[in-house]
Structures are given as structure tokens and as C-alpha cells.
């Protein structure tokens, strides 16, 4: 199913860097990080720059000689996946930087579908130090909260 609309990266939650043709995306709140390869970094950069998904597809179609249907399908899949992982969020309206897509890359080779690799091995760091203590003095919980928290705690 074709996908369109504008998207944005919430920089309070998600940081990213592109290096060696791959984009590393780190979700600060979930403990999950990702690498984007293939055409993924190009799609990511265009979307983060305010281009709509439709504009990105048209840009890729103008740049690469691949079957337009493949480009549209793989781009749509990636965008849906990025949204599901909360790396992108849909923006109502036309987005902040809506405009013509960039010029097609002159030296572009064949189209490589985007690949998103997900890593969860660091999630436990976010579970360290996350919780706190219940004291008779009452801080940080009130007594009722403390009792409720104790009931929720595993034995």
C-alpha cells in the first residue's frame, strides 16, 4: 500500500549519525538502537529533512533505474517500520521543510532496498537504577504508594 505524508524525528528521543553509508539510529528511551543500510540512509535523511514519503519515492525513482513499484513498496515498508519503532512520527500538515526533493545523485548505482537492523542488547542498561526505595520517612513514595509498589514487586 502506498504511503505518503510527512514525518519527523523527535530529537528528544532519537539521535542519529550517518557514517560509512550506514545510519546509526539510537532511541534514547527504549534502549534499542538500529542501523540503516542500503537505500535506508538516503530515505531517512530525506524524511528527516522534511520531504514527504511520496517525494522520497519520486526522488528515488528519478535517481535509480529500479522498478518503481519496488521502490514504492520497500520505501513504504521502511517508513511503516520506522514509525512502529517510534523512530519517526507522522506530522500533520505539510511538514516543516516540504519542498522539492534534492537532485538525483549523479553517480547513483542500482537501487538497493533499505535494510533496518535492530539491536536490543543494551536495553538492560535502562533497567539499572530505574527504581527507588521506599522509606519510612515517606520519600519518594507516600506510604500508600510504597505499599502498592511492594505488592507489585516480584517475590
Amino acid at each position: 500500500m502506498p504511503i505518503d505524508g510527512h514525518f519527523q524525528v523527535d530529537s528528544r528521543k532519537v539521535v542519529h549519525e550517518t557514517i560509512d553509508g550506514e545510519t546509526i539510529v539510537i532511541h534514547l528511551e527504549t534502549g534499542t538502537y538500529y542501523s540503516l543500510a542500503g537505500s535506508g540512509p538516503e530515505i531517512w535523511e530525506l524524511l528527516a529533512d522534511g520531504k514527504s514519503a511520496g517525494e522520497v519515492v519520486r526522488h528515488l525513482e528519478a535517481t535509480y533505474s529500479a522498478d518503481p513499484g519496488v521502490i514504492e513498496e520497500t520505501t513504504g515498508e521502511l517508513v511503516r517500520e520506522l514509525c512502529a519503532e517510534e523512530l519517526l512520527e507522522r506530522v500533520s500538515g505539510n511538514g516543516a521543510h516540504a519542498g522539492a526533493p534534492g537532485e538525483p545523485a549523479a553517480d547513483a548505482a542500482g537501487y538497493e532496498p533499505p535494510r533496518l537492523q535492530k539491536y536490543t542488547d543494551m536495553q538492560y542498561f535502562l533497567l539499572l537504577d530505574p527504581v527507588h526505595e521506599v522509606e519510612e520517612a515517606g520519600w519518594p513514595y507516600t506510604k500508600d504508594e510504597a505499599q502498592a509498589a511492594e505488592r507489585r514487586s516480584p517475590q
Partner: protein
Amino acid sequence: MHAFESAAGTAGLVERDIAVAGMAIRLRFAGDELAPLMRPPLEHLEVAAGGGPEASICVFDGASTGVRIPDFPFSGLDVRQQGLIAGYNGERFRTVYHGDILDPPHYGFNALSMFDAAAATAIFWVESRERVPWWEPVEPFRPALHWVLAAQGRHMVHAAVVANEHGAVLIAGKGWSGKTTTAMACACAGFGFLGDNYAVLSDADDDPIAHTLFANAKLRPGTLDLLPELASGVVVRDVPEDEKLVVDFRHYRPAQLQGSAPVRAVLVPELTGGDETRVEPASARAGLMALAPSTIYQLPNNGGAGLRPMAELVRRVPTYSLKLGRDPRTAPPAIARLLEELG
């Protein structure tokens, strides 16, 4: 701050100035309860008190000073991942609670780290010295240091760092990757030691330079089987199973405790089980993947500000895969050869 000033007024004030990556930070202890415990790993950074520091870290406990901190205007339910307190982590203020609600009836650490960016002041409070877990004095005030350093363009990086006359390598990787063992093998072979777990990069440096932070190394007990010569450096040998051994370089090899060194390479260790250690070129992407996630997730969420300097680092210096052999003593010669080539 009122509680700290009150505690210092009651118990006395102990101040020490340290320089981290060229940044002057004043450690202010209310009383002498926590200073003997928390100061040593930063003692090698101490400098003579000079002009006004660029930031301060105020440290106190409730038990010895008799000062109870004010009730907080937030609920325990506001304490989120990494102990970050919802509503108290914005542009100006940062707040992290340290403790463990899943460990009744003791509940753990019961400490608080706060930072006011506008005042360039951090606070570390703990209920009592007895609450301080073994790991905190090994690398004290990590959230506070992370905040005050980052506010001045200095960035803590999760890596071991060793150096020789040709420069330094950052050894980056997850737990059990061989990072510490390699760094210790290098120290035993005469390399300079800048850190086992953290180093600091500075935006002010024109070229990538690693700066030391903590003088300690934390070892798994099995490290001594591989490098028995480290035994004389271990502070306490008889530790519970869930603790690590601590090597204090201020006493173990003080001449090798090095302040800073130009970074020549990022090494990503990988245990191979072979006879020798080899060094093979790797991508900058591999270097960033080894450095960035563990650094960012181990320190309180700071908006990911540390990612860019780490990316800049791996763009500017090469990354290598360090294929570790069974004997960690084979690593130092391989690293020395690499540094000689790069230096």
C-alpha cells in the same frame, strides 16, 4: 542547595579542585564522611585551588550531617528508566534517583544526583555512607560528572584507554568483549593507563585527545588467572561473587597513570581463541557501534549529545578489529605495532 549549605555549615566543608580535560571542577564535601570514600579515584586530577571553578559538585549525606533533604514535590511513580525523574529533566535541571524498589526491605542505594545547568552546579546526596554500594566509589559521581562536563563541551566515553609514546587507543566494546583485560595486559606491559571504563573527549581539542577520568580499573576475578601479576594491585581480594576486583592505579602503577594522549585508533575487541592477537582494519561504522550505544545508555539521558563527538572521533581516526588470542599478553605487542605504524 540550601540543604547542602546547611550540611556544610554543620559538618564543615572540604573542597578539592580537579581538572578534567582542562575543565576546572570543584568537589565540595559537607563533612569528612564521604570524601575518604569517593575522592580517591579522582585524586590524580586534583590541582591547586585557583580562580573560580567552571562547575561544582556538592556532596553530602544525611546521616553524618544530620541534615534531612527537603521533601520532594514529585511522586516515586515519576521515577523512570535510569532513575530519571519525569518533569525534572529539562534544559536547565537534571535529576536522577539511585535506588532499588525491587529489593525490599533495604531497597538499596537511596541517593540522588541533581544538576542545575544555569548555576553549573551538581549535587550528590546519599542517605548514609552505609548505603553506598561497592561500585559507586570506584567511579564516583558519574551522572554529575557527565552533566557538568557535557555542559562545557566535554564528553564521557565508555571505553578503556591505554597509550604509549606514539599515542592512545580507545578500546570500545560491550561487557565480556575483552576490553578491560586488554587494557590491563597493556598496563602490565608498560603502557600508560588513562581509564578502564571511561575517558573524556573535549570539543576544545583540535585533534582527538583522550583525557583520563577515574584512576581505578574494575576486574572480574578471572582476570587474575590470565594476568596474575595484577594481584598486587588489587585493593581488596576477598569480595563477594557479584562484585569486581578493583585496581587502584594511584598506588599500583602511579607512573603509568596518564592524564591525556592523542587518540590514534579505536579498537573493537573480539575474542577469537587463537594463539595470537591480530589487528585488522574495520569500518568507522563498527567503531561508532562499539562506542556510542554503550556510552549513551550507561549515562543518564542527556539528549544524546555525546553521539556527535563520538562520530567525529571515528571519522578522524581509524577503527580496527582487535582479534584477541587466548593469552592477553599477545595484545600489547600487536597494539604497540599498530601505534608505531600510526604514530
